[in-house]
């Protein structure tokens, strides 16, 4: 709130001047009336179709024309020089039209599922779920380089300091389980915006994402910081905790009725509960062997990402609002960034294919897919033509594919089209702002009303853009 600590939620209601969009106020105020806690579950703007999001971030930009966007013209015209408006060249020089060599997909396309979706054998396991997936083939976004595009994907802005989507969602809906953070980013990359991709920016700090581990790191390191005290046993920890709380209880008596001081005491209670509860959630040893196998855990190539996906499911069950799992690394040219050596896509695909397939099956089997949005994709796609060196593809923010599953997205459905080569989105275009708006919509949030007042004006995730793509919703 723009008046910070001196204007708490209760005062906000008294003065109605603390920055919610006026329409949002009605919904949020209702929840606020019963609870001052900024993380308490809040009423959405309207009945939601989904309660939470799992975002599987394929960092670096997987190639849509080699995976889910089938373009026979690429096979037919392979090797031919043709004129394209290359996004990087336009950004660098303003020049449209450049001679580029068509490069056919390196993986074979076939029709799959009852819906007859074309997809390549790059992701054989995910492909088995096409009847549950909703493809958006006409995504387009901002930013030609990784840094800007990654920020845009997460925060809806390339250059400005803005809250990330998870923070907006947490701000809008609160969390269902205060024993865990409401917004976690598993294996977040430190590169390309790093903490800003799960940052709260000007939203209150309670809405910040919690990073578990870092990109490319082992799943075993993906844990909440300072969750335990290795130096002393649990009984001693309890004694210390009681000592702290008894000192606090005595000290706040000098300022009776001070809610902020009470909040300090509450924060310790919550920390204690988190410390007791969270390790169980992160502990995969209680899962059955069948489940572990389903996620590819125990197999060398899929073990790590499998564990991270399984962790995501466990948090999802526990009511965590926004869970991101990143497959990437911390370099300036992250994982899927095959400017040269496109066949390397196969390694990345192998690492994520079975885990994601396992996650989808597991969520479905547990009935969680109903109210969970699974969102898959990268910060952009790749060009249908070869990069200068001939073995890879450059970034393509002008047209690419993402898919969603569950949460009221039409299963076995495909929306939008790129041109005949898969270069630019041409039909039923979906801008990243539109996708953000659509996902918020499924969570029961109106993207135009989910606002926050900062520096004299209202901000939102979708800036002044965004269209709810109703066509893809059940």
């Amino acid at each position: 709130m723009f008046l910070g600590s001196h204007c708490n939620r209760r005062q906000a209601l008294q003065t109605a001047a603390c920055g919610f969009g006026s329409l949002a106020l009605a919904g949020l105020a209702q929840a606020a009336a019963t609870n001052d806690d900024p993380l308490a579950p809040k009423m959405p703007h309207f009945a939601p179709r989904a309660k939470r999001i799992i975002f599987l971030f394929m960092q670096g930009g997987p190639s849509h024309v080699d995976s889910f966007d089938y373009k026979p013209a690429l096979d037919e015209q392979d090797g031919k020089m043709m004129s394209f408006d290359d996004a990087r060249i336009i950004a660098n020089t303003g020049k449209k039209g450049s001679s580029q060599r068509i490069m056919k997909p390196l993986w074979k396309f076939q029709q799959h599922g009852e819906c007859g979706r074309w997809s390549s054998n790059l992701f054989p396991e995910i492909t088995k779920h096409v009847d549950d997936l909703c493809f958006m083939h006409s995504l387009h976004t901002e930013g030609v380089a990784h840094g800007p595009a990654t920020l845009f994907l997460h925060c809806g802005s390339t250059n400005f300091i803005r809250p990330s989507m998870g923070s907006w969602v947490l701000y809008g809906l609160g969390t269902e389980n205060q024993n865990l953070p409401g917004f976690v980013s598993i294996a977040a990359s430190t590169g390309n915006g790093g903490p800003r991709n799960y940052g709260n920016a000007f939203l209150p700090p309670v809405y910040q994402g919690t990073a578990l581990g870092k990109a490319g790191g082992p799943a075993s390191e993906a844990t909440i910081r300072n969750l335990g005290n290795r130096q002393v046993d649990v009984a001693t920890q309890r004694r210390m905790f009681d000592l702290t709380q008894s000192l606090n209880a005595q000290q706040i008596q000098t300022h009776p009725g001070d809610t902020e001081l009470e909040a300090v005491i509450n924060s310790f209670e919550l920390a204690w509960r988190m410390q007791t509860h969270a390790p169980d959630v992160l502990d995969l040893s209680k899962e059955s062997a069948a489940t572990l196998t389903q996620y590819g855990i125990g197999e060398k190539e899929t073990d790590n990402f499998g564990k991270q996906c399984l962790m995501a499911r466990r948090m999802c069950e526990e009511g965590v609002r926004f869970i991101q799992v990143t497959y990437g690394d911390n370099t300036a040219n992250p994982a899927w960034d095959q400017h040269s050596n496109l066949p390397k896509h196969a390694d990345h695909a192998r690492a994520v294919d079975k885990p994601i397939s396992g996650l989808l099956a597991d969520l479905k089997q547990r009935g969680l897919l109903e109210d969970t949005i699974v969102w898959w994709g990268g910060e952009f796609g790749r060009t249908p033509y070869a990069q200068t060196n001939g073995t890879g593809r450059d970034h393509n923010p002008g047209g690419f594919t993402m898919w969603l599953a569950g949460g009221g997205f039409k299963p076995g459905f495909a929306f939008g089209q790129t041109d005949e080569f898969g270069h630019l989105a041409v039909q039923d275009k979906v801008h990243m702002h539109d996708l953000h708006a659509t996902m918020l919509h499924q969570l029961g949030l109106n993207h135009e009303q989910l606002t926050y007042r900062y520096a004299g004006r209202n901000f939102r995730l979708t800036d002044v853009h965004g269209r709810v793509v109703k066509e893809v919703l059940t």
Partner: protein
Amino acid sequence: MILKQAVRQAARVGLCVVAVLAGFVPCWAEDAAPPAPRLTAEQSDFFEKKIRPVLVKYCYECHSQEAQTSNQLKAGLLLDSREGLLAGGDSGPALESDQPADSLLLDALRYETFKMPPKGKLPADVIANFEAWVKMGAPDPRSGQAPVKPQGIDLQAGRQHWSYQPLRTPQIPTVKNGNWPEGNIDRFILAGLEAKGLQPVADADRVTLIRRVYFDLIGLPPAPETIDAFVADSRPEAYALLVEQLMSSPQFGERWGRHWLDVARYAESLTLRGFIMPEAWRYRDYVIEHFNTDRPFDQFLREQVAGDLLPAATSDEKARQSIGTAFLVMGNTNLEEQDKTQLRMDVVDEQLDAITKGFLAQTVTCARCHDHKFDPIPTRDYYALAGILRNAKTLEHANVSKWLELPLPVEPELENKLRQHETVVAEMQQQVKAAQSLAKSLTAAASGKVSVNIDVVAAKDLPGIVVDDAQAKKVGDWKLSQSVRPYIGAGYLHDLDGEKGTKTLTFQPDLPKSGLYEVRLAYTAGGNRAMDAPVTVFSADGEKTVLINQQLPPPIDGRFVSLGQHRFEQTGQGFVIVANEGTKGHVVADAVQFLPADPGDLAAASVSPTADKNDPKLEAAQRASQQQVAEVKRLEKELQKLKAQGPQRPLFMSVQEEAKLEDCAIHIRGTVHNLGAIAPRGFLSVVSQGTTAAIPNNQSGRRELGDWLASADNPLPPRVMANRIWHWLLGSGLVRTVDNFGTTGEAPSHPELLDYLATRFVSEGWSAKSLIRQIVLSRTYQLSSVASPELAKADPENRLLGHAYRRRQEAECLLDAILTTSGTLDLQAGGSTIKPGTNADYGYQSALTRRAVYWPVLRNSLPELFEVFDFPDPSMVFGRRNSSTVAPQALFLMNSPFVQEQARLAAVRLLRDVPDNETGRVDLVFRRLLGRFPTATERTTALKYVETDASAADFKQQQTQRWSQLVQALFASVDFRYVD
């Protein structure tokens, strides 16, 4: 205009309003009310059949009266009436009567600049109909209204807003309780309270007061002995003396400088790529020094905007002033932005945001795309200011652009020494280079590889990693040739001097390790060759293209030309592309060589698998090679030593005047590729009373900007700074929105007091210390933080300041207090504190015992304690910090190894200082941490907790543990984390 780009920019910049479709203003319709048209039957038929249905179906949703009514109108454009069409939208005139084909309406339908309708391009025949219609003169039978144009900004009305009003010297109010005030500040406060029938609470007790004033002025806790001395000092001037002593201590600037660093978005690295800015610390020290020396604030302000341009009597002064300008370079810039025109304006925008929020508490950057929606700031003013900053070169542009580091002005004596030293170093570098070169050839010989003189050699016989043309990945038709010698392998390739722009060769090495390599291209020269063959190196640093004149003989060994030294990471990109784009003449490539810059690595990388290890000649060569490698190492060490020993030429971050000084055009909708009228450089109209001098043509305007900021007719800076100081001392500003004095900000609770403080600030020479002293000595400042029941009821937010605010300790105060308690605090001042050799900030761990202000502010790796305790995001102007209470803080205090270790050190120190008096030790630990004695209950609780079985074998250990745990619990306690 680069059409598509404009849209992309619009979408990116799009701060507040959607940029969709530009205006349609035919020149034949200049009059506001064109005569009603009379359509021929044919025209009418055409319109009704081919045009209207399309407009209704695809356009009206966003461009009609109905859309306007429901607040859905986009781009201020109405397409449901002739008037609307003619009046156009936000982007200004777009149709030339003689060139109707260029109409923006058609442009949008054709998906050129704009893309309408947004869901998909209309079929070609529909677009052709529109073209035909426009050609006819766009006959349109519809009548209706033009869109309601937004009113221009009324500056006269805007000046009525309180913050733009000239400063006034207010009358000092009279109060009923004349005994209470210590000075005028108190009279204003008491008058406010009395007007509501209220009274201030009692003064804070001496122990509370000294702790408060210590943290407020120097950010450190008072030692128990200091507290005792103050409590015992009954002289009436005891408090004033204490204040004076604190304000003259060097720690004062460290505390107050940090406040300003929040405003200045100070950081030592950038988010993207985590680049370290190694010279940023100079600005931090400059700010600290400013507060310690109390130079006039108006001068401080000028220096941060234009210090590099100000006259200076000495080189020291010149240096100091210049460092101040680093303020402009602190932004968290996206150096990777590929559109450099965009990047340039983004940098300007960021600077403008920092200047106007920081000094003026104005949200000027809202006016980048359109007139400010709430404040009297027209877009023209934005670009008048932007023009000034656009004349300051901030970045050197490249694929990844770079900020500027310039040599710091130094005294002539030092300058001489530096020059001498640099000459010696240069000579030494020559020696090293020669030795390296010899080492290379000896190594080559020793590895059984032939040296340079045979004209045809195999790639494996050359040092380093050599990718021959035979291994290159070819795109297009390349011909193998052996016509010109010397060459490597079976020959070299050329592009047949044909199909320019379509052929490339990619040389991808298998590098044994990450590191620095010299990259060389081998080619054969000739008169028929290209003079500008583009060769691009893709490395960890990005990509760099070198144009090679292949008519000239290769300079190295008659074989190679150097492409420079490049850093490669084993997992990252690393290859070289030879292309024939844009060339005339044959493009030739023979091989690419990667030579490790470290000769040791070179030797390792060059061992030939085929060499005969027992060859005595080879053995001798190997000895020679080893000796030479050792010699290189020795020389390099010597060079390093020489460099380290000699005087260092100091660098600093700054901006430079652009070569071409010019005004900036208004960017329509903020898009860099859609320029409107020129906005002559200038300042905020609403604050300028017409007395400000114009900016001379031969000046960038930055100096003038500094002068205007500090000018007598600009009431904002003194008000803003007085309010900031008040906020930093009292915990809440008179205007609580300290960075926003616009109409969406809050009005001052005590407008007369604010003007009183601001006018005093100016009249006392813009002295921050003087203002701080006045406030700290006021009785208002010294009040107890416990509200009376009357005040709590009548003024729950304490706007009338009937009592002090209890305040959350900031991250730095917590850290400094923890280090003080453990006895490890190191008060060394200034200097760079980033570990030498750090290139990127990812995963950086700070472990210093210096004051928090000296811990590196790295945007991707803030110290955990900072992150948890609301250290401000160093990418934004932050005049007022968040104050959150969240579980991660509790987890940090309970479990972080850092806190545990500090608690242990504090316990050891306690046990040493008070060896055998448990109660005395409990009292001391409370006083060290909280400043006060424990209450009886606290004492009992603590004593009970530390009880240890004295007969136990590990008694000492247990005792230390218990005491550590007590200290840790006190670190976590409310009274440690708050100041009363």
